[in-house]
C-alpha cells in the first residue's frame, strides 16, 4: 500500500512539474475535436449526430499520445530497474503509475469534454451520459494503455506501434462509451452501456496491471 502511494505521489509530482506536456495532451484533444466542424461542415444536426463519437475518438487518440510517458522515461534512465527491484509487487507499481496517468490526462480530458460537447452541438440530454461514460471509460484507457506501453518498451518504432497494439483492446470502451450517449439521446437509456463500461473497468483493474507487469518483466530482461 505504501509503495502504491509512494509511486503515485512521485508520478503526480513528475507529471505536474512537466506541466507543459500535460497541457499539450489537452490542447491536442481540443484541437483535434474542433477540426471536425471544418472537416464535415458546421451544420448543427450533423455535428450533433457525431459529437459523442468525435469526443471519444479524440480522447482515445490523446490518451495514446501520452502513453509513451508512462514507462518510457523510467525505462531509459534506469528508474524502472529500481522500481522493479522494490519488494512491492510490480503489478501494484503499475497500478499506481496507471492511476497517476489517469489523474494527469484522463481527468483534464473529462474537464474540457463538456466545452467540446457544446461546440459540437451535442444534444443537452447527452452531456450527463458522456461525462459518466468518460469517468468510467478513461481509466480503462490508462489501464489498457499501460499494457501497450509496457509491451512496446525498447521497440524500434514506438508511437505507431503502441496505437496498433492498444486500439483493438480499447475498442469496446469506445463502442460502449459512444453507445451510452446515443442510447440516452434516442430515449432508450444509457444505463446498460454504462454498466458494461463499469464491468470493463472492474475487470481491467486487477488484470491489466498483471499483464503489464508481465510485459515489463520481459522488457527488463532484455534491457
Amino acid at each position, binding site marked *: 500500500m505504501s509503495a502504491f502511494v*509512494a509511486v503515485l505521489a512521485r508520478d503526480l509530482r513528475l507529471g505536474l512539474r512537466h506541466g507543459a506536456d500535460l497541457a499539450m495532451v489537452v490542447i491536442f484533444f481540443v484541437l483535434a475535436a474542433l477540426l471536425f466542424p471544418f472537416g464535415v461542415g458546421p451544420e448543427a444536426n450533423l455535428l450533433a449526430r457525431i459529437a459523442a463519437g468525435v469526443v471519444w475518438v479524440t480522447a482515445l487518440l490523446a490518451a495514446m499520445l501520452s502513453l509513451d510517458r508512462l514507462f518510457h522515461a523510467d525505462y531509459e534512465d*534506469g528508474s524502472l*530497474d529500481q522500481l522493479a527491484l522494490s519488494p512491492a509487487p510490480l503489478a501494484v507499481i503499475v497500478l499506481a503509475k496507471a492511476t497517476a496517468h489517469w489523474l494527469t490526462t484522463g481527468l483534464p480530458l473529462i474537464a474540457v469534454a463538456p466545452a467540446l460537447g457544446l461546440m459540437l452541438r451535442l444534444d443537452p440530454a447527452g452531456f450527463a451520459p458522456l461525462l459518466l461514460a468518460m469517468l468510467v471509460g478513461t481509466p480503462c484507457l490508462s489501464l489498457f494503455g499501460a499494457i501497450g506501453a509496457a509491451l512496446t518498451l525498447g521497440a524500434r518504432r514506438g508511437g505507431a506501434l503502441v496505437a496498433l497494439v492498444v486500439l483493438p483492446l480499447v475498442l469496446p470502451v469506445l463502442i460502449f462509451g459512444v453507445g451510452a450517449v446515443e442510447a440516452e439521446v434516442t430515449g432508450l437509456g444509457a444505463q446498460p452501456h454504462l454498466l458494461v463500461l463499469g464491468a470493463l473497468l472492474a475487470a481491467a483493474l486487477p488484470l491489466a496491471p498483471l499483464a503489464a507487469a508481465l510485459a515489463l518483466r520481459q522488457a527488463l*530482461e532484455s534491457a
Partner: protein
Amino acid sequence: MAKTDLDRGRHKLNQRSDPRQSFDSGSFAGAGLACVRGDRLLFRGLGFVVKPGDALVLTGPNGSGKSSLLRLMAGLLAPAAGHLTWAGRPVEANREAQRGRVRWLGHLDAVKPTLTVRETLALHGRLHGAGADPAAALDDALGALGIGALADTPGRQLSAGQRRRVALARLLVAPAPLWLLDEPTVGLDDAGFAAFGAVAAAHRAAGGAIVAATHSDLGLGDARRLTLADFAPSAAELEAAA
C-alpha cells in the same frame, strides 16, 4: 546438458575459490549459470559464492556478460540454466524477499531531472521500507557521499559525477546485505572515489557483501575476482548449439 553444466560449474567453483566454501547459510551463491541474450550464449557453467563481508569483482572484456550476470543476480534476468540460492534456499522461492535483500546500482543513475536529490532518495527509502528514522538515514547517506549541500537541487542541475553520487547514496538510504554495482565509480572524482571506498568498507565491515562489475580498480582491497572470459563458450560449442 543441465547436469554436465552444473558439474562443470561446481568443478570451476572448487578450482577458483576456497574448497571449504559450500552453500552455507548466509551466503549468496550461483551454480551452473548460463545466460543467453538474443541468440547469443554469453557464458555457461558459471558458479560463485558470496559470503558476508565479501567483495566479488566481475571482470572480462566488453560483451562478456558482466552486466548481464549482475542483472541475473538481481533477479531482473532469468538464467537460461542453473540457479541462484540465498542461505542455501533457491531465490525463486521468495522473489520479493530477495528483492528486499538486494540494492542495485546500474550503469544508469535513475535520477529524474525535475526531482530534487532528497525526493529521489526519499522515494527509494519508502519503497524499500527505510529504518525507524528515514529522514536521518537520508541525511547520513547524503553526508557519506559528500552531497549534503545538494539535497534540494533538482537532478537536471547535477553533474555526471554528482548524479553518480546520488545513485550511490541510494545504497545507504535503506540498508540491505547485498550490493550489486555496475561500474560504480564511473564519472567520480578523487573525493567521490574515496567516499565510495569508505562507504563500501563500512558496508563490508557491517557484514554486507558487494558484487561489482568493472574495468577499473575499485579500491576494494581484498576483493576476489571472477573472470567471465573463463566461462565463455568456445566457437565449437556455439556451433554445436546451432
